[in-house]
């Protein structure tokens, strides 16, 4: 099952290389692959029974001498992430319908990217996890530098250097962890490590923890390691922005939950005050910087920095005193990963549609577009309301859970972060006002509204945004089951 989920996009790649000779065919094959992948991830989601522990385990020796295994497995934390990647894959392909240069290669790399991210979410062996983590870099680099806009080479290289630097820390951390374990217990098996609790007992546990933390902090990103993100987003093609905001950042949050919280609970508690500070900085600093952005994509990118602060706050909730600790913050952080992926993915889809038509992302040049493109304007507004955490959209349950959890640990940090929802209302509604509202401008009269493909790209994200918003238990019960062992690690 899990191997199939990783392999299916690669089958799509093979078909593309074999038959995707024309642009139309390449698009059809890519769409077929991502739709099939979405179906498969939906089957996995439906088949996951909420059991405590790991399901669908696949195990094979890979490098027996070192104990490296091809080990796949999922729990309630990874299953929604896999589904998220499936959903965003469809949105990404549909929003790439108008790519004109080297269409086949574009979709090849997009599918490789999806497969690599799937691998990260289902790997239960640290080395395998690291391999997939690195594998995602290559398609990202190529997609930005070849199909991007603006200073694309600079941005792609910046993305690469930052992530590589983080990866170096992770790789060192993995090896130190392995060799620090007691002789007979050496393993890369994340499930075994989580169950035995041995990782937290090794001598340089805080160093290893720190290595992972830096790697994931770059990815999430956490201030001051975030500056690659606005550049990468701004210069990336739409589909890549969707994937970047939707799932690549989530790899950082997933790693923090899976490894930093799952394997090193004691270290995370010690780091919680620092994380609380960083969470507030991320939320408020990100939101404040958004206000000055005049490029629509940069604006959304910085809003991501702000919203990822909520994930950090959720993690910091483990710093609560024994009687106050609860799993709400960690659950909120996990849910925030999913909902931010959906909502910001949607924002990037819409921004891409606007850019494709108006050929500008400069906010002061826009205005009144709701006249010419009512549907796009409505979806932009809906996504904006999702981003500002309006109840009824998926953003609300995630944010309130993060605040609830954070408040029990660091009330000041949660209160300061909660002010982020006021700032988010400010920048989102201001952006809507400046782009979509105002008098009709004649220069936009030729713009057409969304076509059927665009509608598909938006709908595939709008539907989960509202479904989760109206009935969050569909997802929170799954996360709750998956996070229960981790929460127990903190005495909850």
């Amino acid at each position, binding site marked *: 099952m899990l191997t199939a989920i990783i392999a299916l996009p690669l089958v799509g790649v093979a078909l593309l290389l074999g038959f995707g000779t024309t642009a139309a065919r390449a698009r059809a094959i890519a769409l077929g692959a991502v739709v099939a992948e979405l179906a498969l991830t939906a089957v996995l989601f439906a088949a996951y029974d909420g059991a405590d522990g790991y399901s669908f385990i696949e195990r094979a020796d890979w490098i027996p001498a070192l104990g490296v295994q091809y080990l796949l497995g999922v729990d309630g934390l990874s299953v929604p992430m896999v589904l998220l990647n499936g959903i965003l894959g469809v949105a990404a392909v549909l929003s790439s319908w108008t790519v004109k240069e080297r269409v086949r290669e574009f979709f090849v790399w997009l599918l490789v990217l999806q497969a690599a991210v799937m691998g990260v979410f289902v790997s239960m062996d640290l080395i395998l996890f690291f391999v997939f983590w690195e594998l995602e870099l290559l398609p990202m680099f190529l997609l930005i530098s070849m199909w991007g806009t603006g200073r694309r080479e600079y941005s792609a290289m910046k993305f690469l250097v930052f992530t590589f630097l983080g990866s170096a820390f992770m790789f060192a951390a993995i090896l130190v962890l392995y060799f620090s374990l007691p002789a007979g217990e050496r393993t890369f098996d994340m499930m075994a490590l989580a169950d035995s609790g041995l990782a937290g007992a090794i001598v340089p546990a805080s160093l290893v923890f720190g290595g992972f933390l830096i790697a994931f902090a770059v990815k999430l990103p956490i201030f001051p390691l975030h500056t690659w993100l606005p550049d990468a987003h701004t210069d990336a093609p739409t589909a890549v922005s969707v994937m970047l905001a939707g799932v690549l950042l989530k790899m950082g949050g997933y790693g923090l939950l899976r490894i930093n919280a799952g394997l090193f609970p004691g270290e995370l508690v010690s780091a919680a005050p620092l994380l609380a500070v960083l969470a507030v900085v991320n939320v408020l600093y990100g939101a404040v910087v958004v206000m000055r952005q005049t490029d629509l994509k940069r604006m959304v990118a910085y809003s991501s920095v702000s919203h990822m602060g909520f994930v950090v706050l959720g993690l910091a909730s483990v710093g609560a005193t024994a009687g106050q600790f609860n799993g709400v913050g960690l659950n909120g952080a996990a849910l925030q990963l999913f909902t931010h992926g959906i909502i910001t993915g949607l924002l990037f889809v819409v921004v891409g549609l606007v850019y494709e038509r108006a050929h500008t992302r400069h906010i002061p040049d826009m205005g009144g577009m709701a006249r010419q493109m009512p549907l796009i304007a409505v979806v932009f507004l809906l996504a904006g309301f999702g981003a500002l955490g309006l109840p009824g959209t998926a953003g609300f349950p995630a944010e309130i859970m993060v605040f609830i959890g954070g408040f029990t640990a660091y009330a000041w940090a949660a209160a300061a972060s909660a002010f982020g929802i006021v700032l988010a209302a400010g920048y989102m509604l201001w952006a809507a006002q400046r782009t979509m509202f105002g008098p009709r401008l004649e220069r936009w009269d030729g713009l057409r509204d969304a076509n059927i493909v665009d509608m598909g790209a938006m709908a595939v994200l709008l539907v989960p945004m509202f479904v989760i918003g109206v009935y969050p*238990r569909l997802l929170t019960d799954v996360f709750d089951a998956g996070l229960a062992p981790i929460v127990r690690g903190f005495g909850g």
Partner: protein
Amino acid sequence: MISEAAVWGIIGLPLAAGALAALALLPALRPLARASGYAAVLGVAGAFGLSLAALDSTLGADRAAGFAARSWLTVGDPASAGGFEVTVGLLLDPLSAVMVALVSGVSMLVMVFSLGYMRKEPGGEGGAWADYPRYFTYMSWFTAAMLGLVLAYNLIQLFVFWELVGLFSYLLIGFWYHRPAAAAAAKKAFIVTRIGDFGFMLALLYLYLHRAEFLAQGANPFEIPDILAVAPLLSAGVATWVALGILAGAMGKSAQFPLNTWLPDAMEGPTPVSSLIHAATMVAAGVFLVARMFPLFEESAVALNAVAIVGGTTAVLAAAMAIVANDIKRVLAFSTVSQLGYMFLALGVGAWQIAIFHLLTHAFFKCLLFLTAGSVHHSVHTFDMRYMGGLRAWMPLTYAATVIGALSLVGIAPLAGFWSKDEVLAAAWSADGAGSVLVSRLVFVLGMAAVFMTAFYVFRLLLMTFHGRFRGGIDAVPADELTPDEAILAGHVHRAESPWVMLLPMAVLALLAGVAGVALNAVGAFGPLPAHGLTHFLGGLSRDFDQGVAGLSTALALAGIGLAIAAHRRGVLGLTDLPRPWSVVHRFLAGRLYMDHLYETLIVRRLLYRGLFFAADWADRRLVDGTVDLVGWVGRNGGRAVAQLQTGQVQVYGVGVFMGVVVMLMLFMFQR
């Protein structure tokens, strides 16, 4: 006993009607646009019917009925301190029964009025019915959200609907989104109310922080009946902080000072929207919320005093600003803020049932007054009273309705407003709430002062609009003051009464604004009507009629009216060219106390946008990212010695990173 499904239907019918109305947005169904209005009216009429059934049910033996709360969001075991649960349910009790009947009833009347009002002038873009589907969809969904708010069983559920009414308020204020003023006003309304909601949110967080005290009683920290039951048992300070947080939310929604600045701007929305949302229902949600959570407030004298002072201050300040406004809707908006201040005042002195009584009568007369303003606009196409005058000549029915609404608002016996305002003031005078006596007396004085001011501005409105000679309507407005939308209407002044579809709702509301005071809450048994029917039904409080308070307030009201008539006779009602000290006061009030200037220009634009936001953006580009680029620059240029390695190939960098990792690894190993 009404069934749970029927109570859900109160929310569900307008929701479904809104969805039906939205169908007419599809290009293929455009010809059915007109029908979307009927669908919306039917949906809310159905909700009104069910609301009456619910009210009837609570009048019987089962006064309160909470319907099983279902889990909406659960983490861990809700019964343990490590768990978290948000439930969703319905809370039907006298308070919510009265509110649903009011909301659905007023909404129905306003929707009927809108059938006539929202019809565009012939020749408008997209035809006469072009605005219909979008308008009636928003209005239906607003009504559904408002009904959901009132019926919420859980405080987080209430917060959800609280935000949703804010969403539809945003969409309806910005209904004519192509007008820059409307788009800006919509944004402002949402953001200012959200500042209050930030406090509401903190109150929710604070409740959870003290969940142990709830769990010890087997209670859920978010379920409203549980909170109210546990409130007296909470440790010191908890009730105060939670109540103050909730008050912040209520102040935002009900436009209380200092969060009052959004409501006058909200008049950019269509007039029936102002009538329903920004006079009768949504802005009263803050009053409802405090009334709903009243046992919690009663535990804290600090919170009650805060409510009273906020209310009293707002009542006076807003009334003062209403005196100098020239836009008929702005006058009514300031008046709404002022009257909501009265309701807060009543809440603060412990008389929440009387606050709800005033909420009801205010909903009737203020909704009516907004509809008459809409009717006036239908004829003269401007809201500026300086260009009206003499309208009673051709709008006798609108004039009559305005007079009834005006007298009710001023508080002249025996109209509805008299009874409710009198009870508010009497409650403040008697000062037997849990708050401080001194505060009660202070807000009594403020309330009395506002009575005089109210009488003056209401009659100023009445006289400037309907009396004297006609000053030309939109045709007399200087061209540079017209927006493009208004300019189209120039030359279309028609001296005629509005159509019956607009007059009918006004007639019903005029009737209610006249008799509701006696009918709902007569001071003594009156025919079949029981004494203090409403306040008894809501929760047992009754207060004897205070002749002294009534006499004083009536005298002040008559003085205000007399002053307005005298000023009208001398032709100085426009309040221009005032002598020296008064002109300064006028400028201060007309500038809305310079609060907008303080918030928008000084704080947001100067301090934040050009200050903090600019500095943060600069720091991000120059310092944080600059460091990154510097490191990269040093790497590139310093690396010239090993320029062969600078091939630009990813693999080579990868090798470099890998080597670095190996070095670090060896360092770690040797450390051990």
